[in-house]
Structures are given as structure tokens and as C-alpha cells.
């Protein structure tokens, strides 16, 4: 187990370097950020050169990358053009997005798995067909449509919730955006759980458990659900990273100043430190989430061993 974890951690190093370098190259390829700083005015060459020098942009791409990585290891993620350090941007953006992700994941786990179990147990019944149809609708409607519609309905017409989230973004304001963010994944979780449960209801160990006379509740939770959760946990695990990075649409609609918004601004303003810094953290989140998912397998299914 320990060796397995160490091997996995070592594998992260090349993934980390490769992905950050790719992002760095991509942002670099978007063009000269200094030219855009001046707006419609043509840049004054001396000022532009001075800014390039201050931002280390007057070096070759590999030199910039090495300089950047050196700084990262000392905890210096550079500065956005607005003069804010990228670390302070992260400090304000990540907590907000993490809260949003927690709300979304909770929706996925609670609603998704419960619906999945119910439909899996009642295959072919009206409940099953109804939920299947519903998830199909949810999956096929783009997030920005559901987002704007729900915002208009609950925020403007019914006034149950504020139509936009305040800068501090407390949990209670994030319920609707969290639901919007979760919806598509929620539908997948429902469907995955349903299939998995449906498959396992016919398994030998379930029949044994039932034959032993265990209470129905215990059969479902201890035996059936636990074994059926492996694909679902895999999905939710990888979804954590996807939700954090993919919150751009939801965050824009509900005016949430989180990771998605900062990334969008960084790309729009062609600001390499912001984009690479945020993506670096997201890459780490992805890697750690994946590792945790793999380790969770053993908890769910004791037959799985790590070497």
C-alpha cells in the first residue's frame, strides 16, 4: 500500500511538468499580452519594452518557463496585470469554488445515488422510466440554458434566492448555482448507479445475503450498494477536478468570483501567470483526487489489494 502510494506520487511529477509546460506554451501562443494592454492605442515601444522586461517577457519561451517554475517552487506565482499577486487571486478564488464544488458534489452524491438506487431496484417501473427520461433531458440541455432559466425563475420572478452571488459567496447563496453545476453530472451518477445496482441485484452475494435473512435495508446498503459504488466513485472523483475547472459557465451566470472567472479573465487578458498558476493547482487537484479514488476502491471492495 505504502509503495503503491509512493509510486503514484512519483508518477505525478512528469504529469505535472508536462501539463504545466503545455499550458505555458498555449498561453504564449495566444500572442503578445503587452500589445493588448494598450487597447486601441498602438503601444509606445519604450514603455512596452519596459513592461516586457519587468514581466520577464523579453526572454525565450524555455527561459520564461524555467524562470516561472523556479519561482513556483519558492511559492511565487507571479502577478496579474492588475498588480495583484496570483497567490492572492487564488486565495480569494479557490475557497469560493471549493464551496461551490462541495455543494455540487453533495447534490451528486445524495440525489444522484438515491435516485440511482431507487431506479435500479425498480427497473422498468414508471419511476425508473420517469427518472431516465428526466436525466436524458438534463443531459441534453446545456448548462448555460438551465442556469439562466433557473436564475430567472427563482431569482427574478419568484425572488426566492438572490439572482447573483455576493462576493463572500456563503454556502446558502451557492445552493442554486451548485445545483446548476451539478445537474449534468448528477444525471450521469444516477444512470451509473442504476446500471450498477441493476447488475448486482442478480449477484450471488446478494442472493446469499437475502437468503441469510438479513434485513432488506442492510442488504441494500452493506452489500448491494457498497459493491455497486466503484464506478460511481471513480466518476465522482474525476468530476471534482472537472467541476472546479469547468465552473466557468456557472460562475459567469451567477456572478461568482471563483476559479472559472479568474481563468476566463486570465485567458481573455492573455495573462500567463494567472492561467498557468490556476491550472497548476487544478492539475494537482485532479491528481490527488484520482489517487484518493484509487485508494477508496480497497475500502469499498476488500478484494482489491495494492502492490
Amino acid at each position, binding site marked *: 500500500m505504502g509503495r503503491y502510494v509512493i509510486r503514484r506520487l512519483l508518477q505525478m511529477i512528469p504529469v505535472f511538468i508536462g501539463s504545466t509546460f503545455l499550458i505555458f506554451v498555449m498561453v504564449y501562443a*495566444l*500572442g*503578445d*499580452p503587452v*500589445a*493588448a*494592454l*494598450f*487597447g*486601441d*492605442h*498602438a*503601444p*509606445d*515601444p*519604450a*514603455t*512596452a*519594452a*519596459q*513592461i516586457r522586461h*519587468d514581466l520577464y517577457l523579453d526572454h525565450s519561451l524555455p527561459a520564461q518557463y524555467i524562470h516561472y517554475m523556479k519561482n513556483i517552487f519558492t511559492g511565487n506565482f507571479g502577478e496579474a*496585470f*492588475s*498588480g*495583484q499577486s496570483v497567490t*492572492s*487571486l487564488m486565495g*480569494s478564488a479557490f475557497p469560493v469554488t471549493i464551496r461551490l464544488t462541495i455543494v455540487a458534489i453533495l447534490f451528486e452524491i445524495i440525489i444522484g445515488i438515491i435516485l440511482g438506487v431507487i431506479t435500479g431496484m425498480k427497473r422498468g417501473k414508471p419511476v425508473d422510466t420517469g427518472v431516465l427520461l428526466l436525466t436524458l433531458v438534463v443531459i441534453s440541455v446545456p448548462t448555460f440554458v438551465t442556469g*439562466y432559466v433557473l*436564475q*430567472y425563475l427563482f*431569482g*427574478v420572478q419568484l*425572488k*426566492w*434566492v*438572490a*439572482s*447573483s452571488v455576493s*462576493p463572500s459567496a456563503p454556502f*446558502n447563496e451557492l445552493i442554486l448555482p451548485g445545483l446548476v453545476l451539478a445537474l449534468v453530472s448528477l444525471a450521469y451518477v444516477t444512470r451509473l448507479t442504476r446500471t450498477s445496482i441493476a447488475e448486482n441485484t442478480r449477484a450471488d452475494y446478494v442472493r446469499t445475503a437475502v437468503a441469510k435473512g438479513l434485513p432488506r435495508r442492510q442488504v441494500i446498503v452493506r452489500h448491494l450498494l457498497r459493491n455497486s459504488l466503484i464506478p460511481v466513485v471513480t466518476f465522482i472523483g474525476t468530476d471534482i477536478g472537472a467541476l472546479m475547472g469547468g465552473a466557468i459557465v456557472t*460562475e*459567469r*451566470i*451567477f*456572478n*461568482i*468570483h471563483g476559479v472559472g*472567472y*479568474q481563468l*476566463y*479573465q486570465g485567458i*481573455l*487578458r*492573455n495573462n500567463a501567470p494567472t492561467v498557468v498558476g490556476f491550472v497548476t493547482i487544478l492539475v494537482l487537484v485532479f491528481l490527488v483526487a484520482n489517487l484518493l479514488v484509487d485508494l477508496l476502491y480497497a475500502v469499498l471492495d476488500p478484494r482489491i489489494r495494492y502492490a
Partner: protein
Amino acid sequence: MRGATRVKWAVGVMAVALTAAACGGGSDNGGGGGSGSSSGGIVRASWGDPQNPLEPANTNEVQGGKVLDMIFRGLKKYDPKTAKAENMIADSITSTDSQNFDIKLKSGWTFSNGEPVNADSFINAWNYDALLKNAQLNASFFNYIDGYEQVHPDNPGAKSTATTLSGLQKVSDLEFKVRLNQKFSLWPDTLGYSAFYPLPKAFFDNHAAWLRKPIGNGPYTISSYTKGSLMSLRKWDGYKGPDPAQNNGVDLRVYTDNNTAYTDLQAGNIDLVDDIPAAQLTNVKSDLGSRYINEPAGIIQTIAFPLYNARWSSANSAKVRQGLSMAINRKQITDQIFQQTRTPASDWTSPVLGTAGGFKEGLCGDECTYNPAKAKQMIQQGGGLPGGSITIGYNADTGSHKEWVDAVCNSINNALGNNKACVGAPTGTFADFRNKITNKQLNNPFRSGWQMDYPLIQDFLQPLYFTNASSNDSHYSNANFDKLVNEANAETNSSNAVGKFQDAERQLVTDMPAIPLWYQNGSAGYSSNLSNVLLNPFSVPVYNEIKVK
């Protein structure tokens, strides 16, 4: 039912908490007394995150400019209605030769931290702004002042040989002299621009602290600033200027998306949105009625030609450019694509200047009037489109330019009876697009926009079309045009100067280095809590005039 009650209850608690928080925040300014009004006399307005740190000479976009105009007052101020430059801190600005100016200040002005506004506040600020080392984006606005070349050499990598502008000379605390390096009669009228604002000693003593919470001399002070999300401005009771705030303050909230801001306006969460999203333009009149403002701003959109390229430098090429201009159905495009938030252009300036300021409707004449038959004939006379077809370059990341570029091309193709004559050519990002323009890499026409820095006809012509001027993206050069501009600048009488500028502008009709398309309007919408909302010539709301019910 039960769920609904619970949500209502939660909303009620939140409302109480928010009101409590708002009272707590406002109490130190003594402005929380608006009984019956939920906002306590505070205007809640939408905002965008400023791109650069808030320094007068480092801010060249609207969002940062809004704040600077609220917390600062300069030598002059542009009248929100007429765009005329009027003395503010300046008592008088006089010159006998259009080159040496004597500036006298009014006494009694102070910064909100108590420091007096005197000649040093201006001289120190301008020296800081122009110095190359400080890399201020607007440094080039000081290039008319004598000694600029020493403080800010033009070549990349060169070092400054002086740290102060030799053209600035202090006479007394309330008087200083400015020597320009060329004649420029309208120069005093440029001094309303935010780059020329004075700076307090606090700026130089602790720069980092000042940037966190800028201190100015205007009708508002910044009471709190959370970068990227909220800036609270409060009325400054110590403000002695002629235009104090009519409200208790302004809360500027950063919006990720103007659609959300508009939704919040409808939901009653904010009072003022100064950028109506394109998608809402069809509903906005029924949603807001008379609380929707749509009026011209000092912005003109053009299609510029890379005149440095062989495709566009032949003797007959001007005919082709004129023909292309006549092939564009401006009225139809502004009506259908922009829902009348643009006004078809018939000169190279903007209606906000007013006729006295140099705007002349129809100056471009037939050359800017839709006439497909004549257009085809002109293009043929000029030898046809270079290479048989053209593209129009634009950036695809912001501003949804694709729609109108396609419409313009469509209009040209219809006129020529050839559906392959013109297509749009997107570039991914604005940065890359600007890069190609600056590096002279384009060989086809491209979209070009110009937002004025100050409401002067000079600002619409000289930076864009004077030989080697800073934003002359076409690299247009015409000796007659240059001569007329120089003469206009040397005039001591401003109406003579405007006349000369218009003569120069007539040269553009003949050469057509850029096709005027339309003047852009500013748009805004506000809630029924507000009154007296108007947009200034820069399409920014005049915040200090807004009254809260």
C-alpha cells in the same frame, strides 16, 4: 409549501443581516439616514474589473477610468452634456503663442487626506507619469511637453537621461508654466483627461498603500476596495468643488457577465447597469421604458487598410477603397445587427463633439453613402479588388465582431455580384490581433475602433492619420493632411483650428485610409430608485449627479 416558507424565512434573515451589514459599513461616513429607502442613498452600480492598477496615467480603459473620474478632479473637466472642456482646478490657462502656457490654480482645493492641491501636485505627478522607468501605459500623453524625449526615450532599451520634464516650471504654489515642444492650441482642452490628474504626496511616500486604496481630490472617497469584487465609494463631505455628489455614495460591484448584471437590475439587486447586453437589446425598451439610455459616445468604428502593403499602395488603390466604402449599407447593418445602438458614420469624428467642436455630419459625402452601382464602377476603375478578393480582419474573443464583419462583407459581395469577393478573417485573441497590426503583418483591411481620450476633433485625426503618429495603424501619410493639422494646432483661435482640422479631414475623403462605419452609442439602464442619470461623452454614467429616491 413548507419548503417555500422556509426559503422565505431564510431570505428574510439574509435581508436583515445584509441591511445590518450595510448600516455597519456606512456608519463611519454618517450617510446611513435614508429612511424608507433600502439603499440609504447609495447607488448600486455594475462594474468590470479594471485591467491595470488604478493610477491616473496607467489606466486606459473605461472601468478604471470610471473610478478615477469619481475620486479625482483635474485642471479641466468635460461638460457631461456638451463635451466642452471647462476649468475645474485651473483658474486660468493662458498662452500667447500656443506653445508656452501659464497655468494658474484656484486656491482651497485639497486631497481627501488634507494635503493641498498645488502646482507641485501636478508637476510631481506628471514627472512620475512620463518617466520611462514607471512604465505607465499613458506616458505618451505627455509627449507634447518639452523634455519628454529625455525622460522617456522612444527606442526600446534606451535609458532616460533626465527624471523631470524640462518644460514644467513652478512659479508659485498656485501657478506653473508649461512649455510644449510644438505649437498645440487645443492642448489646454486635453487636460481634462485622467492621465493629467494631480497626485498627493501620499502616492509617492507609500505607493503600495496608495494602490490598495487610492486617495484623490474628487467628490468621492474610497471607503473600501476588495479587488476583483467590490469598491465602495462614499460622498466626501470635505469636497469644495462646484460639483459635489448628489447621493451618499456609489457601490461598484464587479460582474462576471453583463447578462447577470442585467438580471440583477431586473431582480432589484442593483440600480444601474451601464452596458446593456446585446441579447437583451430587443427587450430593453419594454423592460425599462424611459429608464433605458442609448446615446452616441465618443467612439467610432472603421475599417482600416494596411497602406504599407503593396496590395494597397498603388496609385488607383484609393478608388477601390472609396468603392468599398460605398458598397457598405451602414443603415441596414446598424438597424438589424446593432438594434440602433450604432449610428451610421458620415465623417471621421463623433457626434459628441457637437458642430462647434468639429463634428460635421456628411463631411464624407457620397463616398460614405451606400450606392452599390457606383461602388462597383469605382472598384473596377481602381483596377478591381487586389488579387480578386479581400478579407476583413477582426478579433474573435471579445465584442462579437463576427456578425457585423460578415454583414459588411455580404453587403460588399452583393454590390459586386460576387459572393467570394469578401470574407471575414478572425484572429483568436485581441492581443494577437493587435500584435499583427503593430508588426505590420496584415495585407488586408481590418476592423479598427477608436475611443476618444478627450472630446476634441484633434484626437480623432492626429493620433490616427498623421504621418508616423502613435496609433496610425494604416501607416497613412499625406503631406497636405500633415500640413493642415500643423496649421490647425498653431491657430490661436479654436474655431479657426476646428476649421483647419476639418480641411484636413476632407483629405481623408480623397485618400480613404480608413472607412468610417458607425458611431458607437453608450447604453445604460437604471432602476426606479434613481433619477437624473445621464451618460457623459465617454458613455460613462455621471455618478455624482445621480439622485437616489
